[in-house]
């Protein structure tokens, strides 16, 4: 089967404009995502996971390698990817409905049609009845639902999610995680999710990609074999705790400490 998203030898090198010193943010990152897979990237801050998401989002061009969606370069494939941003980033002057339709409107669909297509999506994310509210009237969790709805409304091949629950309180975050799985199972999208929360990654994913700190390299690709649908209670089960521990060890192993001390010698 053709992968939905394919990254092939992606590298990202930043050159400091004055000193000329270069920093390698990502090194030789390759991954293939099957349709309807939920894949999460975890890694310490500064490991380049958000940089990779920006590349997948077409906002950054990698210095080496390619990222394609269904064989099409991501720079061109803007209709194929829907992004869910870290902050809800809703336009305060638009209603919930207009915000949910906004992604589609940006792609040139007229307002009326975009709003018609956003309506069922709002229902899917549990916001039916809030169409005419403004963002300031919503809670943080509800705003993130609109953020998700905006990406889903364009009916993308792949959903790119950049730590969307990072700014929510712990309880709301857990609730949104299980809600997201519900939405995902109904919409049957491929999802690439970036987080630094290990339990979030294991709970949501089919696969957890673990990245090392600078330069960001793929150090493990762990398959989460916990059956779905997953109740939040599985977070206390033995298999979950075991997988969580496995990721934790990879992130906090002696190698990453070594890399931190070697940080000053880069370039």
């Amino acid at each position, binding site marked *: 089967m053709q992968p939905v998203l394919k990254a092939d030898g992606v590298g990202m090198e930043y050159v400091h404009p004055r000193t000329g010193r270069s920093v390698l943010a990502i090194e030789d990152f390759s991954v293939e995502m099957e349709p309807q897979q939920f894949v999460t990237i975890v890694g310490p801050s500064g490991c380049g996971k958000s940089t990779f998401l920006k590349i997948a989002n077409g906002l950054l061009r990698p210095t080496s390698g390619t990222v394609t969606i269904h064989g099409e370069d991501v720079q061109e494939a*803007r209709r194929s990817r829907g*992004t869910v*941003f870290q902050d809800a*980033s809703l*336009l305060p002057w*638009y209603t919930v409905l207009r915000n949910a339709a906004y992604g589609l*409107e*940006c*792609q*040139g669909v007229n307002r009326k049609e975009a709003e018609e297509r956003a309506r069922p999506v709002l229902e899917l994310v549990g916001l039916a009845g809030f169409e005419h509210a403004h963002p300031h009237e919503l809670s943080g969790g509800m705003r993130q639902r609109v953020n998700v709805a905006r990406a889903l409304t364009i009916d993308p091949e792949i959903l790119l999610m950049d730590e969307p629950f990072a700014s929510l309180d712990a309880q709301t975050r857990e609730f949104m995680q299980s809600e997201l799985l519900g939405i995902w199972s109904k919409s049957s999208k491929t999802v690439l999710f970036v987080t630094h929360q290990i339990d979030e990654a294991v709970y949501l994913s089919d696969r957890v990609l673990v990245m090392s700190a600078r330069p960001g390299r793929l150090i493990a690709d762990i398959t989460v074999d916990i059956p779905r649908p997953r109740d939040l209670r599985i977070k206390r089960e033995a298999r979950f705790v075991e997988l969580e521990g496995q990721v934790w060890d990879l992130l906090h192993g002696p190698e990453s400490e070594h890399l931190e001390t070697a940080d000053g010698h880069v370039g």
Partner: protein
Amino acid sequence: MSARTTHPPSTASVDSLGTKILRLIRRRERIILGVLGVIMVLVFWELVVVWGWLRQSTMSSPSIISERIVTELGGDRLIPSLWVTLRAYLIGLGIATVVGIPLGFIGGWYKRASYLLEPWLAALNATPTVAIVPLILIWLGIGQTSKVFIVFLFAVFPYAFNTMIGVRQSEAEFLGVARSFGASQSKIVRSIVLPGAVPYIMTAARLAVGRALIGVVVAELVASNTGLGFLISIASGTFDTPLLMVSVLFVGVFGLIMTELMKVIERQFDRWRPEPSS
């Protein structure tokens, strides 16, 4: 309060009218005290003139002025003057709005245009516009055109300056969203840049409404033979204090109406913002 709660229910109904009035007064405190403040000054003014502490010919008095308002309203000076002033004011303000907002938008959105415009805007904004008025008289002479132009000059800079700042403050976060979904430049301007600049433009409008009024009065004082400002200047020249007071009063009321009107318009644009009270 504590007295009311300790009283048995039967006596509560006796003093209920008194408490009701007290409560009403307390709720309308702001209006009642405001009106009271105005009345106190007017009464004091009247008395000071009646007692002969100040001369009636220079100070006039509230009763004389109110009589004069009635006669002037019936005459053929005040109302036509008011219309003339209103016309120049609205035309000048209108042109300032139509020119100032696009000018500010260009300055805020196109970096190079802002480099070109900024020295002029900064310099002209810092110069008291009154100082330029004599120059306008040399260029355009005395009459409606120069009056409108002076109003325009007074009002255009707040528009241009605030719109420029508002456009520059467009949130990078929103621009990122729009670009990620592939929005065109015009879509970005319509959906993010302009709505984001609305609060700045509203502030500009509030400033412009006041400054345009200064402009129209200044223009009529020095460069006109009609209007409320001209009436003030005639009254001053003929030591007609009541007429002067009536004219000033009308200019003041005019300004008040415009400011309140702006508040109503502002509220129309404000539906998406949280209530200031909450």
